[in-house]
C-alpha cells in the first residue's frame, strides 16, 4: 500500500552498503545515547523519551534522509519518525492494558473463580472461595435478551436503508449515527425514568432494555454495510426473473451477506457486553446466582468489576482483575469470531481495494 519508494521491487535492492550502515546507525544510535544518558545522569525515563530520544531520532533520521535523497529525504524521515513514534505509543498503551489484564487477572483466574458465586465472600476472603459464576450468568442472560430483541430490529433497519427507495433514508441514517453517540449513562437514566414513571421495579429486564439503544446503531450500521457489499445486480437479476422483493432479499441478498450480518450481531454484542453505567442504574446487584431476569436482583460482570475496583484490599483488587480478564476473554472471543468470519470471502475489504486500484 505504500507509495514511495515502490515496494514492488525489493526495497533493499537499491540501497548500497554504506547507506545500509547509515540507516542502521540512525536507528540504533539515538536509543543507545538515550540509554547511556539515562544510566549516567539518572534522568527520568518519560522525560528522556520525549526530551532526548525523539529529537535525536528526528535529527539522525533527517541526516540519513538528506544524504540519501537531499531535501526531500528530510521531509520523508521527519514524517516517518513522527508517525512511527506516535503509533508505537498507542501500541504500548494497548499492550499495557492487555498485559496487565493477563498478569493480574491470572492471579484470581481458576475453575473456582469461574464457577462459584459471591455469597459469603468478604473483602479479605481468600481467592480459593467465590467467583464470577453468577455474574457471567447474569451478563449472558441480560445481553442475550437484548440481542434477541435488537437483532431483528437492526436488520430490518438495515433492510430499509439498503433495499427500499424511501426518501427519509438519509435522515434515518443520520439519526442512527446520532443514537450511536448516546452516552451509556443516559441510556440507563432513560430506562430508570421510564420505570419511575410507570412504577416498574428495577430488574434484569430493565438492564436489557437500557442496553437496546446502545446495541441498535451498531447492528444497523454494520448490517447496512454488509448488505451494501452485495452487488446490486444480483438483486436486480432476481427481480427481473419475477421474484417479489422479499424473496429476492431472503433467497439472494441474505445468503450472500450472511457472514457480514453475523459480524454485525457479534460486534453489537461486543459493544454492550462491557457496558457498566446503564446496568448500575437499572439492575440491583446480587451476590447470589439469579436465573430470573424479570424480577429481583441480578449480577453482571461489569458491575462485579466495578464493585471490587476501588477496594484497598489486595484480594478484592485481584477479584476485579479476574472479572476483567473474564470479560476481556468474552470480548476477545467475539472479536476473534468476527475476524474469522470476515476472512474467507474478505467481503469487508473488497470495495476499498477496487477503488484503490482505480
Amino acid at each position, binding site marked *: 500500500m505504500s507509495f*514511495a519508494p515502490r515496494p514492488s521491487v525489493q526495497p533493499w535492492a537499491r540501497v548500497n552498503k554504506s547507506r545500509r550502515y547509515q540507516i542502521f546507525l540512525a536507528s540504533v544510535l539515538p536509543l543507545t545515547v538515550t540509554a547511556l544518558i539515562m544510566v549516567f545522569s539518572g534522568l527520568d525515563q518519560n522525560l528522556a523519551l520525549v526530551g532526548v530520544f525523539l529529537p535525536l531520532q528526528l535529527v539522525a533520521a533527517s541526516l540519513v534522509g538528506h544524504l540519501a535523497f537531499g531535501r526531500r529525504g528530510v521531509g520523508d524521515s521527519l514524517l516517518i519518525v513522527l*508517525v512511527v513514534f506516535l503509533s508505537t505509543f498507542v501500541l504500548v498503551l494497548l499492550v499495557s492494558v492487555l498485559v496487565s489484564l493477563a498478569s493480574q487477572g491470572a492471579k484470581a483466574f481458576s475453575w473456582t473463580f469461574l464457577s462459584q458465586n459471591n455469597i459469603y465472600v468478604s473483602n479479605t476472603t481468600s481467592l480459593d472461595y467465590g467467583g464470577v459464576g453468577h455474574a457471567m450468568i447474569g451478563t449472558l442472560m441480560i445481553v442475550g435478551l437484548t440481542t434477541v430483541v435488537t437483532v431483528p430490529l437492526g436488520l430490518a*433497519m438495515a433492510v430499509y436503508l439498503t433495499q*427500499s427507495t424511501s426518501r427519509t433514508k438519509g435522515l434515518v441514517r443520520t439519526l442512527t449515527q446520532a443514537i450511536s453517540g448516546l452516552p451509556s449513562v443516559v441510556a440507563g437514566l432513560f430506562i430508570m425514568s421510564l420505570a419511575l414513571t410507570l412504577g416498574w421495579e428495577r430488574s434484569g429486564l430493565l438492564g436489557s432494555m437500557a442496553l437496546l439503544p446502545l446495541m441498535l446503531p451498531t447492528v444497523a450500521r454494520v448490517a447496512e454495510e454488509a448488505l451494501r457489499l452485495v452487488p446490486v445486480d444480483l438483486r436486480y437479476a432476481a427481480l427481473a426473473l419475477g421474484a417479489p422483493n422479499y424473496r429476492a432479499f431472503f433467497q439472494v441478498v441474505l445468503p450472500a451477506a450472511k457472514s457480514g450480518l453475523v459480524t454485525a450481531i457479534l460486534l453489537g454484542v461486543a459493544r454492550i457486553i462491557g457496558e457498566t*453505567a446503564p446496568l448500575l442504574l437499572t439492575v440491583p446487584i446480587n451476590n447470589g446466582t439469579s436465573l430470573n431476569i424479570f424480577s429481583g436482583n441480578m449480577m453482571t460482570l461489569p458491575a462485579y468489576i466495578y464493585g471490587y475496583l476501588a477496594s484497598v484490599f489486595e484480594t478484592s483488587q485481584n477479584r476485579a482483575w479476574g472479572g476483567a480478564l473474564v470479560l476481556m476473554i468474552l470480548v476477545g472471543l467475539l*472479536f476473534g469470531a468476527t*475476524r474469522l468470519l470476515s476472512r474467507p470471502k474478505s467481503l469487508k475489504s473488497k470495495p476499498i481495494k477496487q477503488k484503490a486500484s482505480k
Partner: protein
Amino acid sequence: MSESSVTKPAPVRRKLSAGPLSTGDKLFFGTASIAANFAFVLVATILIFLLIQALPALSSQGLPFIFGTEWNNAKDPIVMQIGPMIWGSLLIGALGVVFATPLAVSLAYLIVFMLPDRSSKAAASLVDLLAALPSVILGLWGLLVFTPVAAQWSSILNSNLGWIPLFQVSTVDNGFLGSPFIAGWIVAIMIVPIITSITREVFSQLDRDLINGALALGGSRLSTFRRVIFPTSSGAVVGGVLLGLGRALGETVAIFYVLQLSFDFNWGQILEPKGGAVASMILSKFGEASQAEVSGLIAAGLVLFILTLCINFVASVIVNRAQPWRKD
C-alpha cells in the same frame, strides 16, 4: 418537417411508480419502515421520559441549574447546580481530543500509506481491538496501572513548564492524582479508534494519482501530507474528532475513579485534582440520592443527552458530506 413535429400533441407523461405490489412485498417493506421509524420513536421516547422525570428539578432550580456551582442536599429547598460538571466534561473532552487526534491521524497514516498489506490489516485489527475494550476495564487499568505513570508525566510538566498557567497547581502534596489531565488521557485512549477509523477510511479513498503526482513533482512525504493529503481529508477528520468528542462527553465509568469531582470551576489548571464530568457525577451521586436528587440527576442526564446529540448530529453531517462515496 419540423412543423409537423411541433403540431403533434406532446405525449402524455407516463406515470412511473415502483411501489410494492404484492402483499408479501408490502409486508416486507412495511416491517422495514416501521423498524426504521423506531429510530425516531426511540429518540422521542428518551427525550419525553427524561423530561417527565427531570421537570421537578428543572422547574425548582431554574436556569442556575446549568450555570451555578453548588450541589447541596442539606439545604431545605435543595440546591442542585451542575455548571462545573458541564464545563469539566467539555474540558476533559477537549483534552482527550487534543491528545487523541495526533495519535489517531498518525495511526491512520501508518495503516494506509506506510505498512505493507498484511501488517496494515493487523494494525487495523489492533485498533479495532482497542475500540472493543470495555470502559470498565479501561477504568480498572487507568486507576491501578496508568494513574501512577500519568502522575509522573504531570509532575514533569509541572516542574519544567510550571510557569504556564495551564500547568500550575496550588500544591504538589496530593501527588498530581485525580486531575482532568489524567481523565483526558483515559478518554483519549477511548476515542483514538473512532478518529482513526474515520481518518483511515478517508485516506484510503484519496486519489492515488494526486498523491503520486505530488511525489513525482519532488514533494516529500511531509509536504505531500501537508499540502495534498491533509487539505482533502481535513473535513472528515474534523467530523471524526467531533464524534470522538461526543463519546468523550458521555464517558462514565472509565474516568469515575481517576477524576476528583469538585463543584468549583476549574477554568484550565489541568493538573489540579479538581475536575468535573456530568456522567461521572450522576454515577457518584446515584447511590444515596433522595427522590428530589434523582430528578436532578435525570435533569443532568437530559442536559448531557442534548449536548451529545447536537455534537453527534453535526459530526454525522460533516462525516457524511466528507465521504461522498457512501451516498447511494
